């Protein structure tokens, strides 16, 4: 018997890889709110001015108002559960376990979502979650204050050398070190506990998660958010997603304490229709 020609071997390989293809992505479970109730079309029409700057030339991410990310249930889809999601679709380079986990979470309607149990949503989900936030800049820090979850805060240390402390304790929000690149705040985040979801849909993370976030106020009412997700234990290569966050003038943050009377999450059963 002759050895198979290289061409046939290649064809066999292609055929085998077709059979070994990953299962398809779980489908959007459909609108969870009557679309007419969602205030997307009630967003006030604002006139954009130039992006403000602080007296020393750094971009100014503050002012009299708050940033509102909108309901972005899926960091990799433009539309999710009937409303706008990420700015563009991403073919997420899942590893087999993250694809399996993602599909399970979509199919059981995110019943194990840490946010439903009042745990911190983590980064980057803060920028894809329907709660307003503010950014307060000082000389050596950017303080994020959030209305949602449990009325949380997050501190980004400004350090152009970008050094993280050694032996970080794993946390929900990670350790954030930032610097300014022109009009962009660039934040490097490591030190995660691997428990947070990237979004409500359920993109998983590991404790090897490394994020590079880029915040740019492109005009007075628009914050462009870009995040690169580098997690070799969860995804086969780094991938990037985007969200446009809108300014709500005059908006103040309310105190929202999720943990107050939280009795619902243990009753969540997911999807019973199979």
């Amino acid at each position: 018997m002759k050895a198979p020609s290289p061409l046939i071997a290649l064809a066999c390989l292609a055929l085998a890889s077709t059979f070994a293809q990953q299962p398809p992505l779980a489908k959007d479970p459909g609108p969870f709110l009557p679309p007419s109730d969602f205030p997307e079309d009630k967003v006030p029409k604002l006139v954009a001015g130039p992006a403000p700057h602080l007296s020393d030339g750094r971009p100014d991410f503050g002012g009299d108002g708050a940033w509102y990310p909108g309901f972005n249930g899926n960091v990799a889809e433009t539309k999710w559960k009937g409303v706008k999601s990420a700015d563009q679709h991403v073919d997420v380079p899942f590893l087999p376990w993250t694809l399996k986990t993602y599909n399970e979470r979509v199919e059981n309607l995110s019943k194990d979502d840490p946010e439903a149990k009042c745990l911190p949503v983590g980064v980057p989900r803060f920028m894809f979650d329907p709660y307003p936030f503010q950014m307060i800049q000082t000389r050596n820090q950017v303080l994020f204050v959030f209305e949602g979850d449990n009325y949380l805060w997050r501190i980004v240390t400004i350090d152009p050398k970008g050094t993280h402390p050694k032996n970080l304790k794993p946390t929900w929000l990670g350790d954030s070190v930032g610097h300014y690149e022109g009009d962009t705040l660039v934040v490097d985040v490591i030190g995660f506990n691997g428990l947070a979801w990237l979004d409500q849909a359920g993109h998983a993370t590991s404790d090897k998660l490394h994020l590079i976030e880029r915040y740019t106020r492109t005009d007075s009412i628009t914050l462009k958010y870009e995040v690169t997700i580098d997690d070799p234990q969860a995804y086969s290569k780094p991938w990037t997603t985007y969200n446009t966050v809108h300014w709500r003038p005059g908006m103040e943050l309310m105190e929202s304490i999720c943990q107050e009377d939280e009795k619902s999450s243990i009753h969540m059963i997911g999807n019973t229709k199979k």
Partner: protein
Amino acid sequence: MKCFILFALAVISAQAQAPDLGGDGVWLPRPMPDLAPNPKFQKNHTTNKSDPVARCLPPGVPRIMLMARPFEIVQTPNRIVFVYEGGAHVWRQVWMDGRPHPKDPNPNWLGHSIGHWDGATLVVDSIGFNEQTWLDDAGHPHTEQLHVIERFTRTGPLAMKYEVSIDDPGAYTQPWTSSSSFSFRAGEKLAEDICLDKISR
């Protein structure tokens, strides 16, 4: 006379520029479980089981300033933000822009706070609390009529004096005061401590 001039200069400079309560570091409160050693204001016999902090709810004011956990003060001209490591990873804001309290505030865990400078002292006036928080670890209760006035005075680079007055006609026959102090830990940062990680659900 020399002394008077120095004093006058200090007052003028305090008015010209607000004292800096922040800096590169954190404040650590002196642990103070009981606000009222005076028997006149003895605590109720509350059990720890009903302690909202044990259920990871926000500690409220002034208790959040008395727990032995570090906090940071982030100071801007319009607003002073307190950021707390302990409690429930919450923050608290004090409006410095001259606004009044809302007429009918929604009762909440941290209240509505407005502040002003009295010389070198930050005076914070807070109302709008719910009835669920405790004033201290000991368990002094209060009603929605609670009105708290706090005075923060940085007495040195590493020291802050904290005075608090409790006025709650629904709970106490007269206003009463207590005091504590904070020490500054230069170069230290707040850690992330998520209370819910530690209680079983």
